[in-house]
């Protein structure tokens, strides 16, 4: 190709791309597929549920408009409020334990030691393994008769515990499974944060004679606040949707029914689409309010951490 031909080809290329590559166009052009998927997969179910939540629809007869009746039944349902309360209880306990454990282990790993990459990699495992598979496995390990956990307790002469079948304990077993699986998430986010902390500020505090606890509380924790809020935000989103650990262990029985399981039962076991939709809208509303609050906290924390 001669030099002129190259120039010419570049010129024709330019005319084609000139329009598309102008910032104003390309930014929307790149985002079109995402918007298409969003509208299909988010707005369709949203409007469907909004519509159905005002109708009585139990599959056999066509949808019948009944106003806010679905919402009224749901809000007067004691079982529903129990499920909501339980979900929040699980949310608070799980996130608190995961954060404290995660911070402890992250501080433990925040140094150079032999085999550090392998050891940290191993801690990643629970995060990647199928939640359903591990819940089923924990169900087996916590089994009252032939679970290894109870066997160890028997050997230690502590007596067997009904981990899954006792209504008082089952909820904590589910929390434990979730905590076991998701603590690595906190560990890794916090570890990454710890390693990115400015060394000079911590050094200055040490020179000034600040105690380690003081330094941790006033410097480290404050600088890590955005990451902590991100963990809380994401874990809130995921924990409200908790389903697999329930399916793998109690299946909503023995006093462990949570919000999403309740919706699943109404919508897919009783096929009460109208009531299920009303529940969905409620659940979505609660999640968005919670996340919006956390999101605002995050923006605030980002402002002070800088």
């Amino acid at each position, binding site marked *: 190709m001669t030099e002129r031909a190259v120039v010419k080809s570049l010129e024709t290329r330019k005319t084609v791309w000139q329009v598309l590559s102008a910032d104003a166009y390309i930014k929307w052009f790149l985002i079109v597929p995402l918007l298409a998927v969003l509208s299909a997969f988010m707005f369709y179910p949203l409007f469907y549920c909004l519509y159905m939540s005002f109708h009585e629809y139990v599959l056999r007869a066509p949808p019948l408009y009944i106003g806010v009746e679905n919402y009224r039944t749901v809000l007067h349902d004691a079982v529903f409020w129990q499920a909501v309360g339980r979900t929040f209880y699980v949310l608070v306990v799980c996130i608190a334990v995961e954060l404290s454990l995660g911070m402890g282990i992250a501080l433990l790993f925040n140094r150079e030691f032999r085999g550090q990459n392998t050891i940290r990699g191993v801690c990643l495992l629970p995060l990647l393994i199928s939640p359903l598979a591990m819940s089923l496995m924990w169900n087996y390990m916590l089994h009252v008769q032939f679970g290894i956990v109870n066997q160890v307790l028997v050997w230690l002469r502590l007596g067997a515990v009904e981990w899954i079948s006792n209504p008082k304990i089952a909820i904590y077993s589910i929390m434990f499974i979730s905590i076991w699986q998701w603590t690595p998430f906190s560990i890794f986010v916090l570890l990454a944060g710890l390693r990115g902390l400015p060394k000079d500020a911590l050094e200055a505090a040490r020179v000034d004679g600040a105690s380690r606890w003081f330094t941790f509380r006033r410097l480290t924790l404050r600088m890590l606040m955005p990451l902590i809020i991100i963990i809380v935000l994401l874990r809130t989103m995921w924990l409200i*949707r908790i389903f697999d650990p329930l399916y793998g262990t109690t299946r909503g029985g023995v006093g462990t029914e949570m919000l999403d399981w309740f919706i699943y039962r109404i919508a897919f076991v009783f096929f009460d689409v109208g009531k299920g939709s009303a529940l969905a809208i409620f659940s979505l509303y609660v999640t968005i309010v919670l996340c919006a609050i956390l999101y605002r906290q995050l923006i605030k924390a980002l402002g002070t951490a800088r």
Partner: protein
Amino acid sequence: MRRVMFWIAVVIVLCAFILPIAWVYVTSLKSPEDIFRPEKLAFLPTLYNYKYIVTVRPSLLEFRNALIITLASTALVMGVSLPAAYSFARFNTGGGHLLFITISTRMFPPVVAAIPFFFLFRDWGLLDTHLGLILLYIYFNMSFATFLLYGFFREIPEELEHAAMVDGYGRLSIFRKVIFPLIKPGAAITTVFCLVWAWNEFLFAFLFTRRVARTVAVGLAVFWGSIEIQWGPMAALMGLAILPTLAAAWFMQRFIIRGLTFGAVKG
């Protein structure tokens, strides 16, 4: 002394994470009688359970299904999320609101999104097909993939692009020669996350597949019959099903410290 304490703590942490996973493989090698005798620590390993899931209740098809669905959905998610995340990071498209809406797709209860799609898919004949599940997994993974990639794109300094533009590169060649090499580790992590999540996803697979397109996750639940739970074959299938994710973990530990910083935090 401090060193000893440190290593004791490390060993406790490692045991807490490894032992339950190891127990999957231990259980899978037990004979049907030994499954119910936890007091017997020394047992004769047998491949009975693995033979069971190959011959008595074939599960290999479930692996093929899961593989097809996982690979296809991940490829499509990346195709959608990469340009979108770039657009969010570089041009702040939609002024932050659009990104928040994208992330909020994950706030919608999947159980509920499943209701309208169940009827839609039934009418379109997409129930129990690979395509149906692939479409659902795009929805399932897209928001978080976009969010992760957004963070990675934010870490690439804009000046690099300006410099390349001054040098006369077009948008396409900038993307190919400047941005892509820099985003590669981030894109790799995101891809692995999408693969793992699609592989592990249970709820949609459980509601939308019956026999033809059943994935491994659903296959596991099937061992929980109405009469008894077949722990042995279940553990064997579990052991095989988590192998790919173990490989993913091995791949990721090199990147992960860098990767999970959620570049978005740096603002």
